[in-house]
């Protein structure tokens, strides 16, 4: 009797494995022959575009919306669709359904003649312009600002230089403040060896391949391990779909304006001026203690791009009475997108922001 059960069990297992192997082959062929899910498809209108800077307004999905509009500021090295992957996995869609009036500053690849753009252009021109247009489009004076990664740095700089301005609440995700905390980047950009002037003078804008390679080298085994895991899970449609979304986004790197890159390396990375309180933009000192508005700073426990040591000082340095640090499980990307973000960050952001948006 027991022998019969064992044989049946083995037969079932063999059948399951054969079925899975067949699925891998079929799906593998599908993978090679298809283009992957359409990303960033939540309906939106382009409000303004000027070279690398683009401002979008998403079409509301709720019957009534919060009074204060929400402006997302994307990282300058990456495309904004990480915040709007596919329906059900889109932070933008989630926010729209929760009743926010959502705008986004997204970045196009800078043109060769935009190599002269500096932090000042972003913080004193583009973001103020976006805020003004959001005010105009919404008819409201107050605006909530949410920045991701370097977009968080730009939002923080803007908030520090426009204390008493229209921003009512500031939320930042994985935002570096103490650049010495980015150990590998600091090591690679060691001023004894890294000639940033030569690179910028020769290339104009910092090439996306260089930026991609530097991200990739932070965890060099991930590329191969990720491909191996994909081959193993080719039978799993959801995994493959998710892999393709993130893989496409991770490879979709933007060049950085040369002067912006030079300034980031020299003033933020080498001299750590933001953390030390010595950064000046347009002749005005950037003092984080001038930020008095409510602040939410979300950081990822396992962020290998902006480690916790690099992002930790923001809450301590900000002058806000109402400020909160949110340390969540996950990494630099899984903090804002994917299953991890849906469970952890999104509902907390909504809970924090909703009551401050009326």
């Amino acid at each position, binding site marked *: 009797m027991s022998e019969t059960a064992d044989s049946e069990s083995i037969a079932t297992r063999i059948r399951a494995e054969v079925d899975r192997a067949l699925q891998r082959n079929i799906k593998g062929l599908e993978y090679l022959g298809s283009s992957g899910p359409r990303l960033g498809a939540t309906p939106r209108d382009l409000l303004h575009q000027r070279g690398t800077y683009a401002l979008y307004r998403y079409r509301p999905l709720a019957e009534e*919306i919060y009074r204060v509009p929400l402006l997302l500021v994307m990282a300058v090295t990456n495309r904004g669709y990480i915040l709007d992957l596919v329906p059900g996995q889109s932070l933008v869609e989630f926010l729209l359904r929760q009743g926010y009036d959502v705008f986004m500053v997204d970045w196009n690849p800078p043109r060769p003649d935009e190599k002269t753009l500096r932090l000042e252009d972003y913080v004193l021109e583009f973001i103020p312009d976006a805020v003004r247009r959001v005010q105009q489009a919404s008819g409201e004076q107050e605006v909530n600002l949410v920045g991701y990664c370097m977009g968080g740095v730009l939002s923080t700089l803007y908030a520090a230089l426009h204390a008493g301005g229209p921003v009512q609440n500031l939320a930042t995700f994985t935002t570096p403040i103490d650049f010495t905390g980015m150990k590998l980047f600091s090591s690679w950009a060691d001023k004894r060896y890294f000639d940033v002037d030569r690179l910028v003078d020769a290339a104009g804008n910092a090439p996306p391949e260089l930026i991609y390679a530097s991200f990739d080298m932070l965890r*060099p*085994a991930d590329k191969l391990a990720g491909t*191996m895991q994909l*081959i193993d899970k080719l039978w799993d449609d959801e995994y493959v779909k998710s892999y393709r979304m*993130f893989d496409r986004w991770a490879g979709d790197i933007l060049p950085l304006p040369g002067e912006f890159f030079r300034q980031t390396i020299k003033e933020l990375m080498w001299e750590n001026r933001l953390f030390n309180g010595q950064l000046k933009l347009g002749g005005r000192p950037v003092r984080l203690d001038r930020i008095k508005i409510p602040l939410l700073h979300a950081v990822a426990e396992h962020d*290998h791009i902006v480690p916790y040591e690099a992002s930790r000082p923001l809450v301590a340095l900000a002058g806000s009475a109402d400020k909160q640090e949110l340390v969540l*499980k996950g990494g630099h990307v899984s903090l804002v997108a994917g299953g991890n973000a849906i469970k952890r960050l999104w509902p907390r952001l909504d809970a924090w922001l909703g009551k401050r948006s009326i």
Partner: protein
Amino acid sequence: MAERSMLDPFGLWAGLASQLEKVGNQAAQGSLNSAEFSALMNKALAGSMTARKALRAAMRRYLEVMNLPSRDDVTALGEQLRALEDRLVDVSAALDRLAPNGGAGGRTAVPIPPRTRKPPPEASADAPAASAPVAGKAAGPARKSRAGRS
């Protein structure tokens, strides 16, 4: 996650991938974080930039001989277009300021709902233990970072 069968060679494969990710990244950290690696990498980068500059200069000379516009010529044209674009933007902004309801700057393809939303009662308190790490495991390849840089 279901236990992988020993009959499944991909079970061993998945284990290998996972080990490679952990051990490979850990092992690489020491080398990547060294001054020697930084020096070597930047030497290669400097070489590549020098070659790029030389190639660009040679290409410029070649284009001059062929009476074709160089990259710098195209960039200069781009700058002129940008100046024109900036002027148009200024004109457009001025018109928007004059128009009621923000003019084109405020236009969307759908009507905007009333701004009367209030947060639901449960959202009035921040999530508990918000400043403490939240337990749980991230799902999907977003944490495996070829795809998602985790």
